[in-house]
């Protein structure tokens, strides 16, 4: 997914000379085409994320679109105050891109797990939060990110993730995409783990449970309509996210359901409120924490029982 992002960004930057890449010594093997094509619009700040974000903000204040880019929590938590005070408060056109959302960097350990980012970034006024589910979404989201004026958080996958959607997608910020329809329950996912939610829906179909699957690529602003419709039409919602159970997609969806006044079955499949110190690859950790298709399907069955 990260290659798809970089390819699209390069294409857009060819047509739009406002685009700058400002990064912090990360991107080997990915960002070279941009750096070579636009040496005057490419800055490696060194391992200095606070300055990276401040410089991006200063560039944006002069009319540029500045993309900050690094892995895991480095361009978010390390410089969160710069994002809040400088970028968001001044309503600046800075795009914060992380590579490797969630547990993507599995065995590298806790420093490289981005598992509280959605909650933190969505609590910042005026910050859009997007987690593409697959490569086509990632490509479309890159365009949407540049078209949107203002602060934008883009949580990018790290490898060759499988396609979630069949055929062309209609990607619109703040508008969820239905992967498949169903009437018994709705699985709402965000990011690349949504694929596993869809796999779970396939398993559930075998057991006679018709599950709707929705890709909630934009966590903020959240698609309230899609959530309310799912609650009304399917009567139960399960959220699936590669994120701490506190305040992420599940929290955002719960806020909408609670305010809607509809008492429905609801479950959040997320990481427990603890640091993932056990060691394992991305896929293994996901299975371990209940995100295997069987695990997700089992949670759904439990909710509906």
């Amino acid at each position: 997914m990260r290659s798809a992002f970089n390819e699209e960004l390069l294409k857009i930057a060819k047509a739009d000379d406002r685009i700058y890449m400002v990064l912090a010594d990360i991107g080997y093997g990915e960002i070279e085409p941009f750096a070579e094509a636009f040496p005057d619009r490419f800055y490696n700040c060194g391992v200095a994320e606070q300055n990276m974000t401040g410089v991006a903000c200063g560039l944006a204040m002069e009319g540029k679109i500045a993309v900050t880019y690094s892995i895991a929590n480095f361009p978010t938590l390390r410089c969160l105050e710069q994002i809040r005070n400088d970028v968001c408060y001044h309503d600046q056109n800075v795009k914060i891109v992380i590579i490797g959302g969630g547990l993507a960097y599995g065995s590298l350990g806790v420093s490289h797990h981005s598992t509280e980012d959605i909650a933190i970034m969505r609590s910042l006024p005026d910050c859009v939060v997007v987690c593409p589910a697959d490569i086509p979404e990632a490509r479309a989201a890159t365009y949407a990110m540049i078209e949107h004026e203002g602060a934008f958080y883009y949580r990018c996958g790290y490898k060759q993730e499988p396609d979630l959607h069949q055929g062309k997608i209609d990607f619109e910020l703040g508008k969820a995409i239905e992967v498949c329809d169903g009437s018994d329950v709705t699985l709402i996912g965000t990011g690349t783990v949504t694929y596993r939610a869809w796999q779970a829906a396939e398993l559930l179909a075998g057991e006679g449970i018709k599950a709707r699957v929705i890709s909630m690529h934009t966590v903020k602003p959240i698609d309230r309509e899609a959530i309310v419709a799912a609650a009304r039409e399917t009567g139960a919602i399960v959220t699936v996210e590669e994120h701490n159970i506190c305040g992420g997609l599940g929290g955002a969806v719960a806020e909408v359901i609670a305010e809607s006044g509809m008492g429905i079955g609801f479950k959040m499949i997320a990481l427990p409120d603890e640091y993932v110190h056990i060691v394992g690859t991305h896929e293994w950790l996901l299975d371990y924490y209940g995100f295997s298709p069987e695990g997700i399907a089992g949670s759904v069955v439990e909710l509906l029982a």
Partner: protein
Amino acid sequence: MVSEKLEMYQELATKIRAHCLRMTHRGMSGHLGSMLSMADMLAVLYTSILKVDPENPEWDERDRFVLSKGHGGAAVYAVLAEKGFFPMEWLNTYYLDDGKLSGHISHHVPGVEFSTGSLGHGLPVAVGMALAARNDGKQHRIFCLMSDGDCNEGSTWEALMFAAHHELDSLIVIVDYNRVQALGKMADVIEMEPFVPKLELFGWSVRSIDGHDCEQLEATLSEVPFEKGRPSWVLASTTKCKGVSWLEDTVGSHYGCVNDEELAAALAELGVSK
């Protein structure tokens, strides 16, 4: 320098100090020492150095001025009001309910480029502005006014290394070098000395001056960039709370405001009637 001009600076600096005394007195707010310490440099900057237009604060060719020590924002509000960026009456609402002016500097006020309040934010943003100006072939300069405390922040050092590496010579830092921080004297907190060689080794062109000497301020700030291809750093030695004799060079002046009696005494010292 013709004495008329010097008098003009001193008069404006005195007005800034008087405004700050009244504003913090009215609002019962802190940071008086931080404000008075930079009154002279603000008077010179806004009279002779910064190309800005009160009628058109967003004029594209303006020099950018970023106050990184946002806690001293009232002094900038005072000079902006004196220069006609907004009505003088706004100063009377500083720090008060439904007021026009917040304790830390805000870009919602005409003439203010950037909001700060958390130290260490100003320089990175100023660097980004300087980078954009250079790449766009623009002629304006970017001034960033900082404090000793600002120089403790890692982000400041990240930015100053970047600025030197990229030879951003339209960037000028002025440090209000009063050597007093929030919990003690700089020498007891984090000693920056020897500061000049440190900065020179980091690739900046540095001048050390008396930050209350308007003549020196004008002469120095008129000569930027000091060297082609290097950002300029003006280390302007000052006295915290300059002008209120009993508070000068005290850590306490960072917090307190003056009471009614002290206000009268302070204004009298400044030669201003109440």
